[in-house]
């Protein structure tokens, strides 16, 4: 068997086996079986590193291995499934296994003592299995199946602490919101399948290139696929589930709702990029750009440390989606990989802080104070140095400061946006979204850092009992902090300002396959990217430092008072604080009318249909039955059947009288009879 097939089968099925063991006998194993899941995920990490090393040694941008087997065969069509292994797959596998391993190790301490400890690991394994399915899939079919499986694991993990109503509701919300996107996704897939007759990427691409599906239909299919990404990657207007999903345990937020699953939408768009038409791309760019800016403005006013990160994730995912829309899809994938590292790190850092807060509150016997509220923190830098440095490095990365990884990818995305504007001389608003979001990102990230780790502790009592988290939780922080440094993504190049390196060599842009297309060619995009690289870099540096300085003045030096500015910008503040009333709008214009409709239909069904029609049948039947009953009982039973009995009885009664019981009477009758017979004979 091919070595790549062996590796990918192992990577795919090991977590599934771990899930099976954990869910059925996990509780009876020593240590509740956490070592089963952890060894499975570490094995996939080793295999992924092996694949990755092989890729680097090979250093071939065109590397591609496709394995496929027939899954279902009917007279009319055949569905095959299998693995596609190219550089994108290998890099993504490595990302998933690194973050997943980090999450498994982090949870050792974070979830310690939880009553459903083994089930937590079972779900993590299920998620890893499903996510690897998305990454390895060579067809939209397997992709869609794994897509739903990650949705399921996400649902199970968000609602992991289902005793809390908010967690159970958040799980439901995530599941239902994703359902909306998945309907579009399914329509997109079926449009392609109807036109082309196959689910596999290779067939779909060649089908599109051969013109089997063109024009508006192809645009529609592309938008359908994008709707799946809107749901899974939480883009506006389906972003509402992701902030609520922070109800899940923090390692889950890091793994699923920051690094991997929410990036699945972006990953899928990267995969199907060659078939997206120009119209679809513009829609994608606008949705992404808007989400990036919109979510960033909400993040400014969050006070819950995990909520800040959740909106920051939304914003960064918006960046990736925008990059796909502008045609710079390698930049999108680049940002996906880099974002996975620093955002997972930020979440683990937040998890570490929350863990410390919980311990302190536990010691104080305080169950009311919110352990995630940044207003209860402050000054933690001295107590949690490792966590502080890890979060600082990640925040520098996400803000786009040179020497850190985020700078490279963010710069590439902004350059892509600038290039689009220069090519088309329109869509200037995307620039505003992109650079505006960059400024705000730097601002709210450092607001979080300053509020949490700097200045004087705001609650000295709580502060007194804060301790640094255990080693198992610090290992992921240290590893991921290192991975937030630029050098890992640019080797063999060591220039911190250029994103040229192994990544840009191995992931090459692909030509659009849309027939008669007006999409710019790869060459055109590359050319314009080259032109916009320097201006984009300078602008992004300026806006990032502006945001950073603003946060510095406001939350560290306190020269600018946050309270005063809040008052001055009250309407804007209110909008941001209430998340633009999106949830309320949905409630007012979607849920409430729907509930009213449901009530009305229920009224029709119950009060009209059930009570009058259905029950009417019952009543008529009852009435008929009564008549028939009377006829049967009074007429047939009493009149005919019983009258036989009665008459027989009456006759018996009258005949009984001649049975006197006296022998003499009988003898007399017999004698009389003889006499009568004699008389008759004589006559």
């Amino acid at each position: 068997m091919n070595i790549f097939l062996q590796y990918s089968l192992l990577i795919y099925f090991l977590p599934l086996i771990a899930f099976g063991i954990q869910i059925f006998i996990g509780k009876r194993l020593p240590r509740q079986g956490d070592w089963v899941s952890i060894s499975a995920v570490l094995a996939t990490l080793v295999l992924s590193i092996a694949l990755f090393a092989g890729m680097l040694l090979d250093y071939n941008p065109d590397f591609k291995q496709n394995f496929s087997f027939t899954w279902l065969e009917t007279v009319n069509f055949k569905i095959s499934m299998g693995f596609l292994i190219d550089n994108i797959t290998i890099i993504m596998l490595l990302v998933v296994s690194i973050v997943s391993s980090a999450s498994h190790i982090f949870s050792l301490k974070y979830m310690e003592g939880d009553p459903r400890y083994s089930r937590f690991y079972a779900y993590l394994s299920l998620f890893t299995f499903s996510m690897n399915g998305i990454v390895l899939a060579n067809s939209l079919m397997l992709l869609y199946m794994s897509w739903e499986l990650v949705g399921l694991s996400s649902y199970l993990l968000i609602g992991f602490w289902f005793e809390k109503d908010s967690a159970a509701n958040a799980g439901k919300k995530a599941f239902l919101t994703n359902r909306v996107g998945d309907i579009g996704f399914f329509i997109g897939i079926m449009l392609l399948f109807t036109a082309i007759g196959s689910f596999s990427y290779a067939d779909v691409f060649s089908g599109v290139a051969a013109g089997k599906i063109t024009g508006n239909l192809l645009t529609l299919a592309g938008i359908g696929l994008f709707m799946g990404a809107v749901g899974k990657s939480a883009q506006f207007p389906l972003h509402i589930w992701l902030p609520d999903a922070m109800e899940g345990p923090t390692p889950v937020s890091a793994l699923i709702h920051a690094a991997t699953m929410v990036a699945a939408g972006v990953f899928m768009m990267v995969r199907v990029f060659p078939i997206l038409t120009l119209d679809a791309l513009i829609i994608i760019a606008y949705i992404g750009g808007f989400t990036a800016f919109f979510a960033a403005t909400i993040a400014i006013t969050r006070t819950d440390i995990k909520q800040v990160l959740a909106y920051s994730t939304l914003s960064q995912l918006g960046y990736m989606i925008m990059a796909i829309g502008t045609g710079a899809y390698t930049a999108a994938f680049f940002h996906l990989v880099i974002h996975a590292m620093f955002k997972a790190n930020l979440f683990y850092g937040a998890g570490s802080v929350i863990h410390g807060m919980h311990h302190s509150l536990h010691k104080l016997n305080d169950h009311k104070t919110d352990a995630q509220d940044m207003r209860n923190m402050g000054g933690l830098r001295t107590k949690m140095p490792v966590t502080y440095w890890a979060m600082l490095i990640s925040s520098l990365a996400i803000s786009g400061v040179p020497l850190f990884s985020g700078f490279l990818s963010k710069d590439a995305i902004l350059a892509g946006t600038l290039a689009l504007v220069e090519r088309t001389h329109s869509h200037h608003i995307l620039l505003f979204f992109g650079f505006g979001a960059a400024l705000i990102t730097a601002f709210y990230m450092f607001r979080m850092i300053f509020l949490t780790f700097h200045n004087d502790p705001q609650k000295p009592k709580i502060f007194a009992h804060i301790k640094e988290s255990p080693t198992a939780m610090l290992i992921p922080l240290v590893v991921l902090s290192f991975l937030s440094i630029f050098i890992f993504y640019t080797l063999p190049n060591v220039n911190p300002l250029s994103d040229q390196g192994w990544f840009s060599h191995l992931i090459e842009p692909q030509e659009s396959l849309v027939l008669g297309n007006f999409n710019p060619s790869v060459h055109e995009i590359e050319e314009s990217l080259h032109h916009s690289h320097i201006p984009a870099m300078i602008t992004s540096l300026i806006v990032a430092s502006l945001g950073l300085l603003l946060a510095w003045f406001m939350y560290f030096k306190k020269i600018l008072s946050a309270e005063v500015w809040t008052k001055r910008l009250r309407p804007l503040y209110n909008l941001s604080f209430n998340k633009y009333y999106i949830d309320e709008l949905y409630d007012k214009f979607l849920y409430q009318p729907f509930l009213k409709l449901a009530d009305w239909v229920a009224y029709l069904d119950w009060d009209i249909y059930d009570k009058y029609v259905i029950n009417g049948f019952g009543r008529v039947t009852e009435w008929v039955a009564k008549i028939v009953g009377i006829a049967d009982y009074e007429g047939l039973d009493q009149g005919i059947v019983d009258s036989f009995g009665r008459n027989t009885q009456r006759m018996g009664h009258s005949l009984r009288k001649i049975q006197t019981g006296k022998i003499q009477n009988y003898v007399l009758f017999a004698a009389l009879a003889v006499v009568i017979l004699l008389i008759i004979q004589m006559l």
Partner: protein
Amino acid sequence: MDSLQIYLTLAAILFSLGMFAVMTRRNAIAILMGIELILNAANLNFIAFARFGGMNLTGHIFAIFVIVLAAAEVAVALAIIINLYQNFKSINVDEAQQMKQ
């Protein structure tokens, strides 16, 4: 009037007297006596037919048979009457009516 007719008339009178006794008496013994009269009337008929009607020996045999039967019948009937008396302290047949509804 020839002799057969005389005998038959006598037998008919005897039968009627027996029948009358059976029908009217309440005393079980009296009923038994009536039955004896009826049997003897029949016996008289057999003998008369044997002598005058050509029945010959058959009539005699039957007469003897009936006498034996009557003896057996009396034995059984008297046993019944004794039982009846023991149960009801009476041999009035009207009083033995337990089985009447």
